[in-house]
């Protein structure tokens, strides 16, 4: 292990974990209200980023307007998904619902390919990539000070992602709609009999998930570029969700940062075979979590005998 580089990789890993946490938040949002795990989230994220790119670059609108338009459109897409594909699935077995979101992911992937093509895009820079922040830590390793180089865009993506996470958790905790969503996820029928309009709640949570996905897509696209493989990033968010606990928002933050951190640390090892593992670390973590503590760090323990 390279001790000199370790702090740098830890911080970079943590920063990379921010947008992943925001991505995972979109998954938790839908799961918390409708008890559906959305495998099409990656494609929502991709479409959101592509729409922003289209408005900003092809239509040459100002960036803020492009983002607002993309957010609005993705909310509409979220609503449409809930109304036309998932509402008929109410009360269907889990397999059907999982397959429905998988089918949706294929449709959205096809749509993205059809409407925007598969080439690599230059996403407009929201945060400048030039002059990184350089921090010199006050203590020494091997008689040399530790210098942290933090890219501006990574730092600000992280801040924006954390802001989004905090906003959403406040929404769940302090507003009556958030309370209604939490209630609806507990028991659909019970919530309905208490006068909650669960379909409206589901629609709202899907619209919100679309918007969260778009914001995560924009953040990821500014830091790592935009092409069709952006949808794959979400696959790294699945382990985050499970590690944190599927219905827990603090879990998402901790899980996202932990996974980013682990990846950062693994990539500092000297041995090539350990460094090769960087890309599958999330899934190894996932297998361990599933075997040892399936409910995750902060999830609710369901008493269920298998």
């Amino acid at each position, binding site marked *: 292990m390279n001790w000199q580089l370790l702090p740098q990789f830890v911080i970079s890993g943590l920063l990379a974990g921010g947008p992943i946490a925001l991505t995972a938040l979109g998954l938790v949002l839908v799961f918390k209200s409708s008890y559906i795990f959305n495998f099409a989230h990656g494609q929502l994220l991709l479409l959101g980023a592509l729409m922003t790119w289209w408005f900003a670059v092809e239509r040459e609108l100002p960036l803020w307007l492009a983002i607002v338009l993309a957010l609005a459109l993705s909310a509409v897409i979220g609503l449409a998904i809930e109304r036309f*594909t998932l509402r008929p699935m109410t009360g269907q077995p889990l397999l059907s619902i999982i397959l429905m979101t998988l089918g949706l992911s*294929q449709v959205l*992937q096809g749509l993205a*390919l059809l409407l*925007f093509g598969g080439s690599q895009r230059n996403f407009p820079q929201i945060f400048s990539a030039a002059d990184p922040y350089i921090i010199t830590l006050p203590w020494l390793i091997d008689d040399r000070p530790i210098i942290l180089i933090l890219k501006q865009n990574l730092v600000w993506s992280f801040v924006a992602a954390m802001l989004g996470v905090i906003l959403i958790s406040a929404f769940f905790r302090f507003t009556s709609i958030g309370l209604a969503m939490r209630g609806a996820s507990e028991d659909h029928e019970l919530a309905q009999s208490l006068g909650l309009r669960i379909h409206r709640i589901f629609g709202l949570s899907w619209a919100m998930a679309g918007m969260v996905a778009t914001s995560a897509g924009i953040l990821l696209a500014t830091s790592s570029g935009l092409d069709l493989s952006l949808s794959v990033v979400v696959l790294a968010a699945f382990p985050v969700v499970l590690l944190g606990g599927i219905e827990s928002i603090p879990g998402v933050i901790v899980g996202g940062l932990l996974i980013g951190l682990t990846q950062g640390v693994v990539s500092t090892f000297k041995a090539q075979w350990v460094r090769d593992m960087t890309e599958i670390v999330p899934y*190894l973590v996932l297998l361990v979590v599933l075997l040892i503590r399936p409910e995750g760090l902060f999830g609710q323990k369901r008493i269920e*005998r298998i």
Partner: protein
Amino acid sequence: MALRPAGEFDVSFARDMATIRRGWQWVLLFAFIAALYAMPFYADESTTALVNRIGITIIAVQGLNLLTGLTGQISLGQAAFMTAGGYISALLVGKLGWHFFAALPAAALGAGLVGLIFGLPSLRVKGFYLVMATLAAQFIIPWFTRNAFPEVLNGTQGLNVAVPEIFGLKFNKPDQYIWLTLTVLIPSTIIAHNVSRSRLGRAFVSIRDNDLAAELLGINLFKHKLFAFFLAAMYAGAAGSLEAHSLRHLNSETFNLVDSIFLLGMLVVGGLGSNLGPIFGSIVVELLTDASAMFGPFVVELFPDAAGGAQAMRPLFFGVTLILFLIFEPRGLAHRWQIIKAAWRLRPFSHT
């Protein structure tokens, strides 16, 4: 109780258990199989290649049906097990000089053992947690082939796979390869059918329907769930080996996550838990995605600036088909086929 044609009575236990009841049905079946084997003599090569691909897909979906359709364990890892089978068979033939017909069962067995490992989480978790565990297989196995033992597995480049050969007959074109595929497909269909109606298959179904009750009835969940994973991965291994030797090249991306999703989708389109389901589903979805390629040129004309228009058709067609089936015919084509048969038998009083 399924409807029987008029005048059809079971007068012996053998008759009661029979899948094919009448002489003329046997004749039709053998005529159909013979027609498939004779395809190279009357069909052109692209048709034969398509039938060949459908045959291999059917094998993989049959395995998935045992695991997901009968046992109720949802798996997104079937393509990963195909990768495992493909690599094992390619290495056995290529590096150790085994005969293909020895390497194929060995690949199935090896993939089955890999499947056992990734089936272990099924003892702790179920539902979509299990989907996640199988999804992990879908990442870890291709990663392994990319990074482990680069001098043997050749990293991201992948392997060139040898052409199967027996008695001087080389299976290097779809025209010949279809004989291999059919020779594996027929026993695999028979085995899948017989597993599903034996004690084992009934145990699988009881686990799917209510695992607690199944355990109380004395079914060992541990053993049966793992065995379902083993069987599914064995089928995948055989299919992967066949496909690898047919493409003659294999890397970690040959069978990917999208393929796993397609296999699950085919199973649902065909009908979960039915023996005809995998066959119907694979045929319909493969033909549909094949037909979608024909729409490519029109789409490129409609959207001239979208370079990906032609490739977009495959996921779009598949996704829309899957969604429509889930909403309007969640029990799949096999169920629709039962309804049509019943309606025919009750004609003119069809009320089903």
